[in-house]
């Protein structure tokens, strides 16, 4: 897989992480965690719309919208006591922003393993991010099919 296969924002995020020492990668992940946007009010008031990502060690909930232009909008929420999970969600929220259905479905499933965090964070924890991406794609497929 080459960088050119990846949507630009995801490629940039990967490049940013890989350019850092292990310890600084954690701090960059923390920056992402702090940047996770609040849920839009219509979802914050409707927890029933949110899907829990069971594979993450900490509670994280996602909701995916596909608008009339087939643009994907990923919303996610996780508690402040779970900064790693917030960081994972934030990477995907930022990395997938503005992408079309086809772009998102084309993101390699192993993207989370390629951004240089398996050593700093551990492979087991990275599985949570892989699950976030997998569930996002599944929600998109369900919405497009409906």
């Amino acid at each position, binding site marked *: 897989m080459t960088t050119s296969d990846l949507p630009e924002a995801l490629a940039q995020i990967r490049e940013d992480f890989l350019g850092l020492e292990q310890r600084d990668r*954690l*701090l960059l*992940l*923390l920056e992402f*965690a702090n940047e996770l946007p609040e849920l839009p009010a219509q979802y914050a008031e409707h927890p029933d719309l949110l899907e829990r990502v*069971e*594979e993450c*060690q*900490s509670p994280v909930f996602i909701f995916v919208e596909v608008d009339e232009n087939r643009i994907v909008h990923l919303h996610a929420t996780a508690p*402040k*006591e*779970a*900064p*790693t*999970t917030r*960081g994972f969600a934030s990477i995907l929220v930022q990395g997938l922003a503005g992408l079309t259905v086809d772009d998102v479905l084309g993101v390699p499933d192993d993207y989370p393993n390629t951004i240089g965090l398996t*050593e*700093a*964070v*551990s492979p*087991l*924890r990275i*599985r949570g991010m*892989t*699950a976030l991406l*997998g*569930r996002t794609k599944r929600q998109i497929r369900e919405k497009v099919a409906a």
Partner: protein
Amino acid sequence: MTVEVDSSAKFTEYAHPERLVSTDWLQAHLGTPGLVVVESDEDVLLYETGHIPGSVKIDWHTDLNDPVQRDYIDGEGFAKLLGSKGISRDSTVVIYGDKNNWWAAYALWVFTLFGHEDVRLLDGGRAKWEAEGREYTTEVPTPAAVDYPVVERNDAPIRAYKDDVLAHFGNPLIDVRSPEEFSGERTTAPAYPEEGALRAGHIPSAQNMPWGKAAADDGTFRGLGELNALYRDGAGLRDGDSVIAYCRIGERSSHTWFVLTHLLGFDGVRNYDGSWTEWGSAVRVPIVKGVEPGAVPAAR
């Protein structure tokens, strides 16, 4: 160079009160020579968001586990890790963490594999420190490296392997997972990644006592009377029992190991860290589904 123990009235009823310190005690002793405070969390980034001033971080994945083999680091690795954190063999170590000290207890158990003598938990962990509005800092200390001797792990007294469990049948087993994991109900829907084990259920004859029951709402350990009600009346443990506790990978059961060993005073409690991720995928080991412990198989 042992730092004085916390003589709080609450701890005196426990079998080994010297294994706990209160938030008040820790606040008053921060900076005491010979004391090293260690944060150990489930979330690898939590320490970076803010931690008790002067505390160092030890992560169960990236520091305590061998990166290749499914095992803990060896004596050399442990010596290097502790020395780099400014911990000497005679340091008093107080560990605290998130989730009712779940991972802190796990780190304490690993320290015990290496025979580090004076290692204690902060009763209530991160949550209590935070709820009391005590200070956090994001400043990461840079302790001068010290010499920690290379001491090989002594697993046998407190760690059980799968074969030990097979030979243990007829003695008490405590499954500290949630009731849903114990009964073997699937908690994830089909087509979702299933984590870690090929089969669901529990080890035959195990009593289910979810680990978190040992903690009160504020994250501190329950009093002796309540713990006795859970583990003696509830799970049927009696003095002199040899007990093995397990969960999914041995972390939650470290917490129960701490309760049984240091608070209730049981000798010879072992933690089966292979736990369900090993047992539930092993070939030809007995498994029981449902809420009942099930019949005791013959020991092998």
